[in-house]
């Protein structure tokens, strides 16, 4: 705070000296994510770059803004994340926190942001509670959530002809929720769940579960788990030749960087839902090219693109409101303006804080289909924005009346 007032004082003096210059609104943006662990490829420095790029492209000076960017590692621990966020809000004058993968950390930041009346734009977090029970007038959930992944994957696969399902589920609350949501969608669309099996979390040996799945004869094996568990299940499924023998694997939480880590040999035939892919159109490809040039050839994930899109819209709202002080007012302005940026195109933010856009069902290419590095997906279906997210009334969000 001290530093801010000092800075404000100084800039006031500077302004008086250079009379006639436009007043500058100061904004500080904090990128809080995993820089060292499981999700550091998926979010990490790529998100920092995306936020910086969004600020550059927005040209803050022309809009009378002065934007500063900070970032930190939350190590996927809610207490580390919440103490960084607290310090940012209370001491360092941060106005908005963006990204925050790992649901437990995101929920902690969500509560804190509401308390301090700042802004939280979540791109990396999965939990659909952020726009459900825990929804807040200070939070926008940008890129994806568990409901939209379960819905997209479940519905689109049944519609494109995968009617019988078998679930391999991580045995804890998150896995159960994924399985429950997806089964509901599958059954509502005329599919059938022929069986489920629970594996301990975290697991390492999935062979017996995969054999049960194989024996069930289901067309689709749904992986209701995440991170290392999903990666290991996919690897071991490749060893059993499950995809080659005609069954398909549907991952419920999978990202471009996971496919890259697995390699096409192992990941081919995998089906899952994402919100964004770099090779969908020219604008995305241009962004990916710049991203790769700055990040050792890595390509952007949907989380990175979401950070870019969220920061862009946030800055537009700040330029409109004229101040970053009142977080709830900024978010209200963000909800009022339709979103439009070069990566996600046109969209909107719903009353419960859910950003609405199309979702896509992808299938991982076979090695011989791939044209080069990072050419991994074929588009199997587009889930239109209107159907991609949980209906407003079903979320139990207290903001919706």
């Amino acid at each position, binding site marked *: 705070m001290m530093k801010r007032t000092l800075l404000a004082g100084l800039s006031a003096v500077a302004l008086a000296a250079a009379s006639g210059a436009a007043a500058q609104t100061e904004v500080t943006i904090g990128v809080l994510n995993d820089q060292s662990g499981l999700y550091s490829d998926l979010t990490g420095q790529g998100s920092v770059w995306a936020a910086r790029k969004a600020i550059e492209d927005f040209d803050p000076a022309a809009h009378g803004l002065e934007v500063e960017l900070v*970032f930190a*590692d939350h190590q996927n621990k809610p207490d580390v994340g919440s103490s960084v966020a607290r310090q940012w809000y209370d001491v360092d004058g941060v106005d908005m926190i963006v990204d925050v993968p790992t649901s437990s950390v995101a929920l902690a930041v969500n509560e804190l942001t509401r308390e301090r009346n700042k802004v939280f734009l979540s791109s990396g977090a999965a939990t659909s509670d952020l726009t459900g029970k825990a929804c807040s007038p200070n939070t926008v959930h940008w890129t994806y959530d568990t409901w939209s992944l379960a819905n997209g994957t479940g519905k689109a696969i049944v519609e494109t002809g995968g009617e019988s399902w078998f679930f391999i589920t991580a045995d804890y609350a998150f896995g159960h929720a994924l399985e429950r949501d997806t089964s509901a969608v599958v059954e509502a669309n005329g599919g059938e769940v022929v069986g489920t099996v629970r594996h301990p979390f975290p697991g390492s040996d999935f062979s017996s579960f995969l054999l049960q799945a194989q024996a069930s004869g289901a067309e689709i094996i749904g992986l209701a788990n995440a991170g290392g568990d999903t990666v290991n299940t996919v690897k071991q499924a490749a060893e059993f030749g499950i995809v080659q023998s005609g069954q398909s694997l549907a991952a419920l939480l999978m990202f471009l960087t996971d496919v890259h880590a697995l390699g096409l040999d192992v990941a081919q035939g995998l089906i899952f839902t994402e919100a964004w892919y770099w090779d969908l159109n020219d604008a995305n490809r241009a962004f990916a090219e710049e991203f790769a040039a700055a990040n050792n050839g890595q390509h952007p994930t949907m989380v990175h693109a979401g950070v870019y899109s969220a920061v862009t819209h946030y800055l537009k709202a700040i330029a409109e409101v004229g101040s970053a002080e009142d977080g709830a007012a900024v978010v209200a302005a963000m909800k009022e303006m339709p979103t439009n940026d070069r990566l996600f195109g046109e969209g909107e933010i719903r009353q419960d804080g859910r950003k609405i856009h199309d979702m896509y069902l992808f299938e991982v290419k076979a090695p011989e289909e791939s044209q080069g590095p990072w050419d991994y997906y074929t588009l199997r279906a587009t889930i239109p924005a209107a159907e991609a997210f949980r209906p407003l009334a079903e979320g139990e969000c207290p903001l919706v009346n």
Partner: protein
Amino acid sequence: MTESTASPSAATGSTATSSANSSASSSAESRAASAPLLTAGRIAFLAFLALALVAPLFLYPVFLVKVLCFALFACAFNLLVGYVGLLSFGHAMFFGGASYFCGHMLKVWGWPPELAIPAAALAAGAMGLVVGALAIRRQGIYFAMVTLALAQMFYFFALQAPFTGGEDGIQAIPRTPILGVIETANDTTLYYVVLAIFTAGFLLIYRTIHSPFGQVLKAIRENEPRAISLGYAVDRYKLLAFTLSATLAGLAGATKALAFQLASLTDVAWQMSGEVVLMTLVGGMGTVFGPVVGAAVIVTMQNYLAGFGEWVLVTQGVIFVVVVLLFRRGIVGEAMAFAERRRRRREDADAAAAGEPEPAATH
């Protein structure tokens, strides 16, 4: 600082190997040194307290709260490893367990903090009684493994149990006023509340160490068979120390749940058990202030280096290696050993100076 033995054998986790002589001499020293009202230890404590009282003027209070919570946790752990020679690798179970209990009592049952925090600490103590009763039957590495195994069981219980919120933890724990008047929602007020809790816990540990009970604990650490042969019911002493340590670790965890408004799997994971070992080793095992310094160093690094991403973990690792290789007594332990060496040298010099003229006079 009246305690001066930080035996290197304890640093490697083995127990009851170093000579009993050093303990005998140190306890004689400590008895002699605690006679005056202001010992070095008390002066150090008063200086620490004075510093702690004004610290929020210079530093961010929530950061200080975090330091104090971990300092109390490390002190509780040190009571066991530094003074009884029992290396528990499952203390996260008590720390994190109490933070879940406290969070549930505050949020779901709506208990006020003055009830929830002690109740959660006692619940952790009860867990400690059960775990301790099982674990103290074995020694050394086996003891560590039993505690680790039980802590992992508790971790998976916390992952599955409905009241813990699984992966998400218990979020948005309310900071309700204590006794209806002390507003814990204010960060500075909260800091003084936590400081009071820490001081109480710290003094309890200090008192325990310097009581006849504490002397027996140290005797067990130095040479268990000898303590048995002297007629002490060693197992009962160990169990009591284990329970006390678990209760105080629980007190730290419960306080942290109130302060940070969340209880999560991080606090019951085995990494947390490792982190407290790290804090205690860096600060100085078997010293009263060591764990406080160690906790301050580690938490400061985690907080202020967060902007450097993965370098926090690398730095932590390097510091750990350096401490284990070069400063086995930890920061406080080395400082005390340095002071002790200087004192010896001065005494020797004095003795030499006093000894010289005498023979000269007789000639």
